[in-house]
């Protein structure tokens, strides 16, 4: 290998090893986030706090209230005779729904042909929860009442779910690939975006430019050590995924490694591009997060499905590396597919990386 590039790589490795604080964070962050996702963000919508307004309490309403409370979905935190201004209840008690029985509820229930009426006020602030509640309350209440009346639920069609690729619905199968995409992009872009800017600020970049080393060599020398570092992060994520969360890679590990290295390369090149464009580190810092991490988290398809977002953003999503890597990594880990199905996104990733590197080299002006 070119001795100048080798010298530069050696220097970068010295820098990395000497900066143990950053190194520690780089290695600890993925592990930490995995645990965060795996244990803390275990989200089950249960025990949603609700209150009930029951103007004319009766045996039936009491039983219904008990059924609501005993269900896994709801938890009744209070029953009132009159809600007054319902808004106050929501503001004061922070409940998510208020069930309002009509004053003739019990009577209507006993009389066939007259439906007993329940109004459910739902806090729509969290629209996810709001939608779920809105869809859930009617069938739920119907079922409750029917079981109170000991009448079988009339049914016409039952739908059975068959879940592919992740039959146990292990959330780890979902977030491990996603975290790979996000963490690798984050670490890589943050590492390289500051490294060149820092040297510019310190003046050591000038010293390098006076030497025989070419800009292309500088770029390659700077990227290479970080590929290894980010690669270690990727391996860490997979290891924790396997040993702690039981995520097994259905497809080829070799293919996964290759794809990950290509993605890391593209992410590093992106960070490098940012740092060639600015002269001061604080500018690089202000750019890197919204330019790399934000789009990756929001548009890659990891958290928010691509098909749900507006068309313009979908186009942008197709311009970022993360989207393609997510397809590849999910394909390999979850679906177990191979190169035959994944060569297209992998090719796009490679081209993106090379393109970004080329632009960085061009933009990196030796002379002013």
């Amino acid at each position: 290998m070119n001795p100048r590039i080798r010298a530069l790589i050696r220097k970068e490795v010295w820098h990395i090893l000497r900066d143990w604080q950053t190194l520690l964070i780089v290695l600890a962050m993925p592990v930490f986030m995995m645990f965060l996702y795996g244990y803390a963000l275990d989200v089950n919508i249960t025990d949603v706090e609700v209150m009930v307004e029951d103007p004319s309490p009766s045996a039936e309403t009491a039983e219904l209230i008990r059924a609501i409370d005993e269900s896994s979905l709801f938890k009744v935190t209070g029953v009132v005779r009159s809600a007054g201004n319902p808004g106050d209840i929501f503001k004061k008690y922070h409940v998510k729904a208020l069930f309002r029985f009509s004053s003739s509820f019990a009577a209507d229930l006993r009389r066939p042909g007259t439906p007993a009426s329940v109004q459910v006020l739902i806090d729509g602030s969290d629209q996810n929860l709001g939608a779920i509640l809105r869809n859930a309350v009617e069938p739920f209440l119907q079922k409750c009442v029917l079981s109170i009346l000991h009448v079988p639920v009339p049914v016409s069609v039952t739908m059975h779910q068959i879940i592919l690729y992740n039959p146990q619905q292990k959330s780890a199968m979902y977030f491990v690939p996603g975290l790979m995409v996000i963490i690798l992009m984050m670490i890589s872009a943050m590492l390289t975006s500051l490294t060149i800017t820092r040297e510019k600020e310190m003046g050591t970049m000038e010293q390098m430019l006076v030497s025989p080393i070419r800009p292309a060599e500088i770029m390659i020398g700077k990227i290479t050590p970080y590929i290894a570092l980010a690669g270690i992060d990727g391996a860490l994520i997979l290891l924790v995924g396997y040993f702690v969360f039981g995520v097994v890679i259905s497809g080829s590990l070799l293919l996964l490694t290759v794809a990950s290295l290509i993605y890391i390369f593209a992410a590093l090149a992106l960070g490098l591009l940012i740092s060639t464009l600015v002269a001061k580190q604080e500018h690089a810092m202000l750019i890197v997060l919204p330019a790399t991490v934000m789009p990756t988290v929001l548009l890659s398809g990891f958290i928010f499905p691509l098909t749900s977002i507006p068309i313009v953003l979908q186009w942008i999503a197709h311009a970022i590396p993360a989207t393609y890597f997510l397809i590849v990594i999910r394909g390999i880990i979850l679906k177990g597919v191979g190169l035959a199905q994944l060569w297209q996104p992998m090719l796009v990733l490679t081209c993106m990386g090379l393109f970004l590197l080329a632009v960085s080299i061009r933009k990196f002006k030796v002379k002013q």
Partner: protein
Amino acid sequence: MNYSIETNDLTKKFGSYTAVDHINVSVKQGEIFGFLGANGAGKTTAIRMLCGLLTPTSGSGHVAGFDIMKETSKIRSRIGYMSQKFSLYPDLAVRENLRLYGSLYGLDKNDLERRITEMSVQLGLVDLLPRITGSLPWGWQQRLSLACANLHKPQILFLDEPTGSVDPLSRRNFWELIQSLSEEGTTIFVTTHHMDEAEYCHRISIMINGKIAAIDSPQALKDQNRCDTLLDAFLAIVEGGGR
């Protein structure tokens, strides 16, 4: 005669501001050339053009026989540069900085080791090799800077304020080293504020507002301005427009 450094009406403008104004300089191989001037006179801009860091607006220049505008890559391996800002890596050890620059200039393993030993002995850095650069006193960092610039035995050394705030004894040692390098054939192009150091130079030039106001040997300048010390001659030229 082949000059080590030669410029022809070299000019650099930044917008409407002319930093370097049609300067003509010729430096012979092995000469110690002092590039003097007040702060802001344009010295650093001129050096950066000669090193290939800045593109001239007009005029021409040749360093080590190569055109500074078109053949900068050929120039780079033949020159050494010590910038005004100390720009070596503070978190690397002394030895590591030396290894880095030696490798960047193409020294292979054996040569590198040999040259590192030679330079550290010459500059008194042997005991400091394992120390972290940033922890060294300023004077020693300057020496390290010179060592790094000279590892590859360049034809020309560009030194921009190399003895900034170093103590007088160290400065004298420094200049003794420069003189021996000059005797070995290295051209030294140096800027300095210290008039006593300027006496060591074969010739000096004085830059005022981007132009070269005087260029001659120290003794000649003193004679022409009827001064005993170079400092007085310098002041006479800068303030009074003397010769």
